[in-house]
C-alpha cells in the first residue's frame, strides 16, 4: 500500500512539474495519526476500509510547489489561490492512490485544508505510516492511517 502511495505522490508531482525523487524517501510509523506542522490537507477514505490521508507541506515546500504550479507568480502561501492549489494537488494524489490500489468500494472525501500557528492535531486514532518526500527547497510529508 505504501508503495502505491509513493508512486501516486511522485506521479502527480512529476505531472505538475515538481521534481520528486523516488529514491530519497524516509518512512516512519506512528502509533497515532498526529499532525506535526502548522498546515495540512486532510482527505478521508471511506468504503470497505476507512482512513485518513494527510499532506503536510513545510513553508519552503509550499513555496516550492507554488512556484512550479504558478510560474512567474509570487503567490502568498496563505492566499485562497495557493490553498486551493495545495488542496487540489492533495485531492489528485489521493484519487490516483485509490486508482492504483485498484480497490473497488473505496472512495475519497473532499479535501479540507487546516492551518494554525502551533496547531495541535490528531487526524485519526489509528496508527499511521508517514512518508517524507524531499522537494526542491522543502519537504512534503504524507501520512496514511487505515482502520
Amino acid at each position, binding site marked *: 500500500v505504501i508503495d502505491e502511495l509513493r508512486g501516486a505522490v511522485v506521479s502527480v508531482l512529476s505531472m505538475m512539474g515538481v521534481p520528486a525523487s523516488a529514491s530519497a524517501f524516509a518512512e516512519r510509523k506512528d502509533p497515532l495519526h498526529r*499532525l506535526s506542522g502548522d498546515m495540512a490537507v*486532510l*482527505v*478521508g*477514505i*471511506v*468504503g470497505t476500509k*476507512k*482512513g*485518513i490521508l494527510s499532506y503536510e507541506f513545510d513553508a519552503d515546500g509550499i513555496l516550492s510547489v507554488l512556484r512550479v504550479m504558478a510560474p512567474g507568480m509570487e503567490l502568498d502561501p496563505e492566499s*485562497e489561490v495557493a*490553498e*486551493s492549489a495545495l*488542496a*487540489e494537488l492533495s485531492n489528485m494524489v489521493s484519487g490516483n492512490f485509490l486508482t492504483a490500489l485498484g480497490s473497488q468500494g473505496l*472512495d*475519497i*472525501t*473532499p*479535501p*479540507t*485544508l*487546516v*492551518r*494554525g*500557528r*502551533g*496547531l*495541535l*492535531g*490528531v*487526524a*485519526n*486514532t*489509528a496508527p499511521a505510516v508517514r512518508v517524507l518526500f524531499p522537494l526542491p527547497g522543502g519537504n512534503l510529508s504524507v501520512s496514511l*492511517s487505515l*482502520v
Partner: protein
Amino acid sequence: MALVDARKAVMDFVEPLRQVWADFTGRELVLAGVERLDGKALSLNGVVALVSFSGRFRGRLLVNLSKSAAGRLHEAALGEPASSDEEVLLSCMELANMVGGGGLTALNDRYRGSNLRLAPPSAFAAEPVRLCNFGMNVFNVLLRDGEETIRLNLAMKEEDAS
C-alpha cells in the same frame, strides 16, 4: 432531479448533537440560529472536530467548541479531567463521529441509495484554527449551553441526489 439542500441537511445533524451532548453532559443545547457562510475559509477558536463523508454527494461536518467546553465534555464523558490537550481532542473526535453518524443516517433515509459513509474523525486546536473547503456550500448552526456557544458547520456539494 432532486438537489441536496445543504441548509436542510445541516439540521439533520442538530438533533444528534443535542442528544449526544445531553448524554455526555446532562445539559441541554439550545438552537440559536442558522447562517449561510460566504467564502471558503473559516477561522475558529478553540477545538474543532471534523468528519468528512462521501457517497452520492460529498461534504464534511465540523463541531467547534471552546477549550473550556471541550475540557468539560471530556470530563463528563470519562469521569475525570483530561491529563493532556490531546485527550481532549480524542473526546471531541468521538463527539463528531457520533454526531456525524446520526446525521448521515437521517440523510441516507431521506435520499435512498445515497450510500453516504463517514471517514474517521479528526480534531485540531489552535488560536485560531483556519479551515478551507472548496466548491461547497457552507452552513453554520449556532447552539448554546448557557454562556457557551457550540458551532455545527456543514460544507456540502449540493449535487443531484435523485
